[in-house]
């Protein structure tokens, strides 16, 4: 059912979802706050924060949008042997492997140019970015498949539910994974 185009109707449809998602995002904010000292000491890690969150959310939302479309077209079956599922999973990991090393190099160079800071070596920043990226791609696949499956079981339109849920869950996972990887490697 399309929402009527009035401020009241749009707000009634959107605001509850926005408030719930805000609570979820504050959870990732607390994780971010808990390694504040490390982020301030190594500015290149701080530079990685928005781009890691954003790319994780994008990997999830692109996958969710594609699965929703296949689902509507009736070409998707929830079998582990489904080519559509496997192909999209492979593509998500391949995209992460392509993009995250670029993110690492970009974050290191940007930090060097802006603040002249090289407290973390280039290889280290690339390693942090790539490890986070691969973990996030795998998590994005798991989260998106599960959310699409749940939507399917409950007869919900995946376009309405899966994309916002997946994007925000991947945002949160972006911070959590970056935190975990930074603890392990830095």
């Amino acid at each position: 059912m399309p929402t009527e185009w009035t401020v009241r109707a749009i707000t009634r449809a959107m605001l509850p979802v926005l408030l719930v998602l805000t609570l979820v995002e504050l959870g990732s904010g607390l994780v971010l706050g808990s390694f504040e000292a490390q982020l301030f000491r190594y500015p290149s890690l701080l530079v990685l924060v928005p781009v890691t969150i954003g790319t994780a959310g994008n990997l999830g939302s692109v996958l969710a949008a594609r699965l929703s479309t296949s689902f509507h077209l009736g070409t998707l079956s929830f079998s582990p042997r489904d080519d559509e599922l496997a192909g999209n999973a492979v593509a998500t990991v391949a995209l992460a492997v392509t993009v995250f090393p670029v993110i690492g190099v970009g974050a290191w160079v940007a930090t060097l140019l802006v603040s002249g800071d090289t407290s973390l070596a280039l290889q280290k920043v690339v390693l942090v970015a790539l490890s986070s990226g691969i973990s996030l791609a795998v998590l994005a696949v798991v989260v998106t498949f599960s959310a699409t499956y749940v939507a399917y079981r409950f007869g919900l339109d995946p376009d309405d539910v899966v994309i916002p849920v997946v994007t925000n869950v991947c945002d949160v996972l972006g911070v959590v994974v970056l935190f975990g990887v930074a603890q392990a490697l830095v």
Partner: protein
Amino acid sequence: MTVRDVAVEAYKEALPALAASLVGGLVAGVVLGGMRAELRAVPGLLVLVPALLATRGNVYGSLGARIATALHQGLIEPRVTGGDERLRAAATAALANGVLTSTFAAVVAFFLLTFLGSRVAPLPILVGVAIVAGLLSGIVLTVVVVSVVFAGYRRGRNPDTIVGPVVTTTGDVFGILFLLIAVRTVLAVAGVF
């Protein structure tokens, strides 16, 4: 289609959008990295960053999707006349929801951090930053989303595929940029009193 075909197609389709938002994300990161002084001056602000960025994406992504659907259905014309009530209502609702949600995030973050016994800036400072940042970035993002979707549609592009990358890229950049401007403004005003 084989697994390989599906994978190659999905990869090619997604790479340009990811590359575009990568650039936006890095620019946002550089601004964030450059505002360490402000983040230290306003404890609790870093905790707000993911919520504020996500709100920009959710609110203005939804505005863009709504406009894209309306264009497909012929409900609105792809030009800004200022007289279109529907468009005005959608933009006003986005702005109001964006500011309300940002304020909510600031209030909850304040009480959460107080409860956890963490250092946190005074409530009026956090709320002030959230409102100023939400308002400024909201105005700019509304203009960007509406004009890019309209311009793309007039050139025969599918607005559905433009909205996502445009919102994620500009949302991150303007989200952080106006956060910086908002912190400086609020700290300057607070310093006067």
